């Protein structure tokens, strides 16, 4: 039996951890390994996990390294264990249905070239509403969450998508081992936000397949850890967006989306100002400018990525339309 390693990264949210580990423990798929990466929490998260869930492997970081590095450390530790074939990334505010793992693994066995798998992620508070079905880079260059706040219809079938939401997703070991940047799955230079878009774009342009498995269900609260500070999230999103686009997309598509990107940014700033959120609008502008200044950091990675790029450009452009 292939082992599944669940990785939970936590920072100051001890109140969520109990339910999260309970839902992982209730999975019908038996062979599992749980890794908890603690990003220097100031509350008693570590003691809580040690006391209540002794089977969990705990990795403590001295500083707050962010989502990307925390997950990378967890993945590195998990892959050292023998027989681990899948990595499941679970946010501390996500909950899984008991059959989640079983259904995704059943599906993934049909797909030898599958990299990332996502369940239907519904809203934690209202199960009729979708939190996310997949993520994609739209034609105007913005990383977009698909299906957010739409009503859930049960008839959706499994489909190939651009990328998956990292709130609750499954990654195959084959894909992690095929990474161009050694074992670094998430780009640590991004620190926080849009790492999943980066990963999705990388998997797609490298010719791997990402899938939405709608039978499996997960529930997500959404932006608990950092939702308290919207200015910061906007700043990080726009800063990282510039880097993600440069790193992964072919030049012809970059040129194609540039005018739309500028227009979309202006629209965003206008909308924020109209809603009397001038501080946030300034953050967007700042994020974009800092992103442009930081571009040289990512040139090397772009050159390396371009060697692994196999997807047909027209196909990629069509996939970017709606994400499926």
């Amino acid at each position, binding site marked *: 039996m292939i082992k599944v390693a669940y990785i939970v990264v936590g920072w100051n949210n001890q109140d969520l951890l109990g339910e999260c580990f309970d839902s992982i423990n209730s999975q019908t798929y038996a062979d599992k390994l749980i890794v908890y990466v603690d990003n220097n929490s100031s509350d008693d998260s570590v003691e809580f996990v040690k006391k209540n869930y002794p089977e969990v492997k705990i990795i403590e970081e001295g500083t707050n390294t962010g989502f990307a590095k925390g997950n990378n450390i967890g993945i590195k530790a998990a892959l050292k264990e023998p027989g681990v074939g899948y990595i499941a990334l679970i946010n501390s505010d996500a909950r899984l249905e008991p059959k989640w793992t079983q259904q995704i693994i059943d599906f993934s066995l049909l*797909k030898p070239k599958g990299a990332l798998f996502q369940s239907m992620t519904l809203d934690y508070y209202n199960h009729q509403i979708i939190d996310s079905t997949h993520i994609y880079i739209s034609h105007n260059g913005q990383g977009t969450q698909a299906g957010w706040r739409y009503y859930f219809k049960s008839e959706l079938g499994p*489909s190939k998508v651009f990328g998956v939401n990292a709130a609750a997703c499954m990654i195959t070991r084959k894909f992690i081992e095929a990474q161009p940047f050694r074992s670094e799955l998430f780009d640590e230079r991004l620190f926080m936000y849009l790492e999943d878009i980066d990963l999705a774009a990388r998997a797609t342009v490298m010719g791997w397949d990402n899938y939405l498995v709608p039978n499996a269900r997960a529930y997500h609260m959404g932006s608990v850890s950092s939702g308290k500070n919207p200015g910061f999230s906007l700043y990080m999103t726009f800063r990282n967006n510039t880097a993600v686009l440069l790193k992964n997309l072919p030049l012809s598509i970059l040129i194609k989306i540039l005018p739309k990107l500028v227009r979309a940014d202006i629209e965003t700033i206008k909308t924020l100002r109209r809603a009397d959120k001038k501080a946030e609008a300034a953050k967007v502008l700042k994020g974009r400018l800092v992103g442009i200044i930081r571009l040289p950091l990512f040139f090397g990675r772009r050159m390396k990525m371009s060697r692994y790029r196999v997807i047909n450009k027209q196909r990629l452009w069509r996939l970017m339309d709606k994400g*499926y």
Partner: protein
Amino acid sequence: MEYSFQARLAAKVIRRVKFILLPIKSVYIKYLNLSARRNYHAWAVHNERACFVDNGVKTEQKVSIVVPAFNTDSDHFLGMVYSVINQHYDNWELIIVNASSEPASIDKINNCTDLDTRIKIVGAKENISISSNTNIGIAPAEGDFIAFLDHDDLLHPCALHALMNEQALTDADIIYSDEDKVTHDGSRYYGPHCKPGWSPHLMENVNYINHLTVIRAKLVRKVNGLNDDCNGAQDYDLLHRIIDICNARVSNVAKILYHWRSAETSTARDISTKTYIFEAGKTTLTRHLKRKNINASVKVLGDKPGFYKIEYKSADPISLIVGPVDVFLRPACVNWLKELILDHENPIEIIIEDWFKPYAKILDATIITCLPQKDFLNHASRIAKYDNVIVFKEAAVPIEKEYLYELAAVAKGINSIVQPIIVGSDRTIIDAGLVESKYGLQPLFKGLKYGDNTFFGNTDWVRDIARVSESIYAGHKSDIRKIHSKQKDDLSHVVWAHTVFETRSYLQSNKNLKGFNSQLTQSMFEVRMVATTWDEQKDRSE
């Protein structure tokens, strides 16, 4: 009848202005058609996301999709593979017959097994022909049903599920769906074809079923798969053989589930690039007629590629029954009859009411007159001397002289009630039979031009209809009697679109005739068939 002064004035003005208004109206109708075509893409994108799955129906049958591939374009090919992978129905297998000669193309196809474990690659040693390549793919198919797919076409995500749901409900052997076309780069949907329900007589004229068709695998094996000497029309041949030999039940799903890519060499763009197809189609139909023991010949229609006409020959005499005529229309009726049977070859007998007695001598035919009575038509069909009967309740003349005999011969040949298409002088269809719709029986293509291309196919196709509209119709004496006695019958009704009857020119030459066909002529300028627009596709006719 007395009209008021205002009404007469208005009629006068309208008569003057009509010449300006009519061209404007025709341009407007053309614009409506064009905009419907332009809007189709938006609807198709919406349709692509719709879900047609009926969760109440349980189906466990396996579907094998067989795709012959020969040096394919990588992008188009992957599009096809992913459209199968994205299928909602998960009990399928995709069998790709790799007959490519280029090494790059061979590798590309062989790498497809990485995408899904349900994909199987079968290597053909050499590219012999499309039929034998497909047969190689049929051999290892494990499914209960087989679907044939072209290497660059696309499926709707719910395509297999919708078809198998229909199969579970009707227990049919062959299920087909509607289709449309997609541009070379896959960016735009256009040219939908909403197909009628199972119409055996249309099938003898054109392979309207085409894609996407799911066929029971047992039957495909029973007729030994595709026939190698019908390349180009191999699917046409297969369908005919299965339906003729195995008595297959056919059903359809009225949803657009298949996108036919119009690649440069594909038949979607221009069928006339491949002339060998027509010969293969002719062979197919000749064999089909032989199996059915029908004495007729097949003609390839040169101006309409892919279409065939079955020519029934008969020199049998015919009886014409003319319905009751109003007093003031009788002189016109005499003129019309004179024109109708001008220079006829076969013996003709006319059965008409006894007002005609004084004119009997001027017509070169046997005239039988009988007293006006309540069930005149019923009585007339009883006393008719010959077996082949044509009933006229409206005045119209065939635009070619031999159409009158052809109509009778066709009715005898296909053994059903047949009516011609009745058009006005500008080829506007006045009457092409009645078809079933959501609102009950509706006139088919009324108000469209003869030969127009609609979303439901062209208006000049032979069609199986729910009922003839009882203006002009032909059939065997006993069948005609069944129609007149209003019994429930199991007759098949067909509008034979190759025979065109014209009413307009006749009315123009005879000013007195105003009102004779009044119901038809008035409606001519009013009704555009609503169901020809895409948003009414649910109201589509049979």
